[in-house]
């Protein structure tokens, strides 16, 4: 049999297809009608609060917001593919590690021109504003301050009846001694600490307390191979002494909060950033608290980090509307009554004063911790170079090769250090 199809019929068919095609593609075009696309990485608690702020904004008749959220792991690849397809959302959540790269590659809009007009940051802490500057222009508004911490299971510690020493002065040796003292009193299956051999931010506090940093302002490695060797030797010793879980158990933590050793009752101590305490406590029935990181040198390695930024995409459809939304998010009282300090302690002084009395006990802990750290922090580290993320990811297999006894700490540390230098040159 044959299909009867004349030229005209075929043309009609093709024409219909083409117009459908055209219809489908209009959705991807930017709209300059006061509508703002917003994207962030988050967790269930953060998503809940952010969506509530979006509703408040829309309810106030300020305009329409289209929200989008991913987990940290998927977020950056999603953002990169959107950038490649010229379809970046208008307002992006940015991280200190990536803001320099994104700004220098022309993906972000400088915000200085909006200050005093659409964006109100009059009550902002100067140093938090500085944190969002790249090459003299502001590309991100800090959503809050945080610092790295040691989180510990307070419930278990009170059961034992042990009093921790003052964490502003304790050293890495103190940490080992406390571990040895507590080792046999901990519940079954609980080690003293998470093994932090592969945690780049922990390594950073380690080298900073020795007066160095991960990177120099020229984007070179800012520490020596000996620092990493000492670091690996330390954590290998912790593992061999039974103060951390064996390597194969520790390796089950792929970085998600719900897989962390301390969250699963497999360790007393863990490593988190202060603003994560809210999400961390949500996952645990035992009460947790945070203290400063033991000192590996002459001074604490802490610094006050902008936990994350809001940035504007360079090809935002309606830039004035995007700027208005950013401003609402960081300085509106109603918005911050919802957000509180889940993204870090806000840098807006008047907002801070307003919300502090109403905070939950967990959030109060964060404020107390940051007040304790505040007078003991060093300078913000220089911006990490473009390939810093890759160097961070290479640390894990390097540490694991040591943890599983395939190589000595010296060999593992040297291999990673050489790799890092090579990655910087790529």
């Amino acid at each position, binding site marked *: *049999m*044959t*299909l009867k*199809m004349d030229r005209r019929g*075929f043309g009609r068919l093709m024409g219909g297809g083409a117009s459908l095609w055209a219809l489908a593609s209009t959705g991807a075009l930017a709209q300059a009608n006061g509508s703002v696309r917003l994207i962030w990485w988050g967790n269930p608690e953060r998503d809940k609060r952010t969506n509530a702020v979006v509703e408040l904004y829309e309810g106030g008749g300020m305009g329409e917001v289209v929200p989008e959220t991913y987990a940290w*792991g998927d977020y*950056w*690849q999603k953002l*990169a*593919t959107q*950038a*490649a397809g010229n379809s970046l959302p208008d307002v992006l959540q940015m991280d200190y590690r990536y803001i320099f*790269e*994104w700004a220098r*590659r*022309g*993906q972000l809009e400088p915000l200085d021109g909006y200050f005093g007009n659409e964006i109100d940051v009059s009550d902002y802490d100067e140093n938090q504003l500085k944190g969002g500057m790249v090459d003299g222009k502001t590309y991100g508004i800090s959503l809050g301050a945080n610092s790295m911490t040691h989180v510990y299971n307070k419930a278990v510690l009170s059961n034992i009846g042990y009093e921790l020493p003052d964490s502003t002065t304790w050293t890495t040796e103190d940490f080992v001694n406390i571990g040895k003292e507590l080792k046999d009193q901990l519940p079954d299956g609980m080690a003293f600490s998470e093994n932090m051999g592969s945690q780049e931010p922990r390594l950073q506090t380690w080298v900073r307390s020795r007066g160095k940093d991960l990177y120099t302002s020229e984007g070179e490695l800012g520490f020596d191979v000996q620092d990493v060797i000492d670091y690996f030797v330390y954590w290998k010793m912790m593992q061999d002494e039974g103060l951390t879980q064996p*390597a*194969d*158990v520790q*390796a*089950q933590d*792929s*970085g*998600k909060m719900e*897989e962390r050793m301390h969250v699963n009752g497999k360790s007393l101590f863990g490593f988190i950033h202060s603003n994560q305490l809210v999400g961390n406590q949500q996952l645990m029935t035992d009460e947790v608290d945070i203290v400063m990181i033991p000192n590996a040198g002459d001074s604490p390695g802490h610094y006050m980090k902008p936990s994350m930024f809001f940035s504007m995409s360079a090809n935002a459809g309606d830039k004035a509307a995007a700027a208005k939304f950013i401003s609402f998010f960081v300085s509106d009282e109603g918005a911050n009554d919802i957000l509180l300090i889940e993204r870090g302690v806000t840098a807006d002084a008047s907002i801070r004063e307003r919300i502090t009395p109403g905070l939950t006990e967990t959030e109060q802990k964060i404020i107390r911790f940051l007040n304790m750290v505040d007078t003991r922090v060093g300078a913000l580290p220089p911006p990490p170079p473009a*390939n810093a*993320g*890759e160097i961070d*990811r290479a640390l*894990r*297999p390097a540490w*694991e*090769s040591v943890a*599983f006894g*395939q190589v000595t700490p010296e060999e593992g540390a040297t291999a990673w250090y050489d*790799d890092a230098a*090579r990655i910087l040159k*790529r």
Partner: protein
Amino acid sequence: MTSVSTNPGGRSAPSTEGRFARIWRRNGAGYLFLLPWLVGFLGLTLGPTLASLYLSFTDYDLLTSPRWSGLKNYEYAAFYDRRLGKAIEVTFTYVLWSVPLKLTVALLLAMVLDRSVRGVAFYRATFYLPSLLGASVAIAVLWRQLFGADGLINQLLFFVTGIQGPAWITHPDYALSTLIVLAIWQFGSPMIIFLAGLRQVPQDLYEAASMDGASGWRQFWKITLPLLAPVIFFNLVLQTIEAFKAFTQAYIVSGGLGGPVDSTMFYSLYLYLEAFANFRMGYASALAWILLVIIAIFTAIAFGTSKYWVYYEDEQR
């Protein structure tokens, strides 16, 4: 499909009609039916494939336009990339173990099912189930749970023997073996193909062999295997290509890290990390083309040697 019979004998139409019009009149409907696939193939397969060939000669980070870099990517892959060496080693180990084992299990089960047991359809479906689920994310997540330090496998082991097993999926000595076991467990599709092949073997050959007193083993060796060779060959090529491309299992089971110590860093997982974690699209494109060449070489070897061991019944020798 035959053309409209205005043209008896299929001789060429009068020359007033253009060549395209003639082709259109004869095969137009066929092309129309082909259109959805053709558009998909050109737009979604061939286009991106050619684009990736171009990108493999560039530096491309997704955020800025690709910059031509000549052979730099291929050079780096060949001489400097240590982790790539590890990824190739892991992938080859996986292919060389998982494919033969999977095919063996598939053939054995196919032979069991080939006997006319009652309810054979039910067993067939049941055995096929793991393969339907196998490559899915859910199963990989389940695998991660099963083989964890406190997982079901270790609980059973402890219950039966009193030995406390390791965390199988996060120990560099066992992680890859765990993934190979997961691959073997997905024997369903080669099994179905083997089953079809076994049904093709003439029964009278077995009857004749039994008359002559050949043992079951001998019958298998002298009749089943030679006659099944084309099917084995087909499965071998298909499964080898699949195993080289394996990604999901390693990605989920290792939490996207290919760990511990890169022991589950499959080639395609490494490629993915280079592309979407390190934003080296150009380099990742080069890696994709290198993988294509590796698979092509293996397939060529399989085809090249096939004339020595694959016997087709309709061949005259």
